[in-house]
């Protein structure tokens, strides 16, 4: 999205990012329910179904809601990263070497911007878990997030404590994974060096 260079698509992607950035996850969820669930009736408005197929089917809208609330940060940082790598010396070099514009963008700019993308994505997963917490409640999905909210509203201290720790461990694990992926994507980073 951010890679398109024409003025119009740049504005569109910026406006989109700026609009979605401010939408609370539950509002996005509610809008999706209204549009695709109630009015068009394509997807279930909530619940989780009873077998695997129904699980997946009822996860479409929640997934979309979480994705929509997560992508603006990614759009913004990818745009910034692409801007940087487009004006970097190696891009100029690739161009002056006679590579086509397309090749340069794909092989040089994207690969380097992608490194930033990976780490942002890793950090975002932490936020994503929080967003999922909200969305789970909107769509009445029996996940850890709804469990936490139920426990909070029932003032069940033990469950809240346990879930907080579990969430913490999950996020730390994801961060660790990000570091590992990072070292694969970017040959300059070596773990344990």
């Amino acid at each position: 999205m951010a890679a398109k260079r024409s003025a119009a698509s740049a504005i569109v992607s910026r406006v989109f990012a700026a609009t979605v950035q401010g939408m609370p996850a539950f509002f996005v969820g509610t809008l999706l329910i209204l549009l695709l669930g109630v009015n068009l009736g394509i997807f279930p408005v909530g619940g989780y179904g009873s077998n695997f197929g129904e699980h997946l089917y009822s996860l479409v809208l929640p997934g979309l809601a979480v994705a929509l609330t997560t992508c603006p940060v990614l759009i913004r940082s990818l745009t910034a990263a692409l801007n940087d790598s487009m004006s970097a010396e190696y891009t100029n070099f690739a161009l002056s070497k006679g590579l086509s514009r397309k090749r340069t963008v794909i092989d040089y700019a994207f690969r380097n911007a992608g490194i930033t993308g990976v780490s942002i994505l890793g950090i975002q997963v932490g936020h994503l878990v929080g967003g999922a917490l909200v969305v789970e409640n909107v769509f009445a999905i029996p996940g850890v997030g709804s469990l936490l909210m139920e426990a909070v509203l029932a003032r069940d201290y033990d469950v809240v404590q346990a879930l907080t720790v579990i969430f913490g461990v999950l996020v730390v694990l994801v961060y660790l994974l990000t570091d590992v992926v990072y070292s694969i994507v970017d040959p300059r980073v070596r773990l344990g060096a």
Partner: protein
Amino acid sequence: MSEPTTSPTATGATGPGGKPPRTRGGTASRATPTARFTLPLPAFLRRHNLQLWIGAVILGAMVLLLAIGPLFVTDDPNRQDLLNTFAPSSIAHPLGTDQLGRDVLSRFLHGGRVDLIVAVVAVIVPFILGTILGSLAGYFGRWVDIVIMRLADIVSAFPFYVLVIVLVFVMGNGMGSIFVAISAVSWVAYARIVRGEVLVLREQEFISACRASGLSTPRILTRHIIPNTVSQGVIYAMSDIVLNIGVVVTLSYFGMGIVPPTADWGQMMNDGQQYMGTGNYGLILWPGFAVVIVSFALALIGDGLTNTLKPKR
């Protein structure tokens, strides 16, 4: 130390190598000789900073509406009229009434005031706290840095919403605990941003000059280091306000934030969702779009400020 986990979340500044990376939006200043290859922002946006102005106008209009609106809409936002619930829009109730017969427009205006004030005020403490801790960590390094940044790591090990919800849960509902919860969590981002800035500043000539001319450390910090980091903090503060609006509205939506019957947008949306099945979409859509508009304006202002305040190095 591994870079990916410790970079400022909102800015996306991450890169390998020891130096604090400077990835943030190099749109305007980094134009190279191959001008056809600089990415998106069209020239007129860059020249006139339209984003900043559009954002400011939208936000100003919204604030004006919330500020003087209640002077014209004199209905008590909490007065119930149980014989007149879910009334369609009329001259007496331009946006209709809710499930207790309360005037939706009046609740919208009063609720917006509460949400915006909480969101803006809840930026101030983290901003100050983060700037102080971040500059200390960056300037002194060593164990000060280790203690402060490990503290920051601990806070950011928990998902943002989980931590805020749990803190509010422990302290009880209400504005006070929202402030404390947000402050306890969101100073981390400011501290990271400011620390990164200070790490660069510390090595520059003008700081060496200050030290050589015998200025005291507190004076260098307060007069020469911190003023140079403020602009980055302010830029982040814009998206932080957006985040805070989201938090306040979400907490109230779950019945953990602003205590009823005080009107606020989150609670209105929760009410609205419950009665959405009966076709009363207005209850949820008005506050919802208001949140989106305010956040949109703030995002534009943030983008505009980034282009204006970004240090030209």
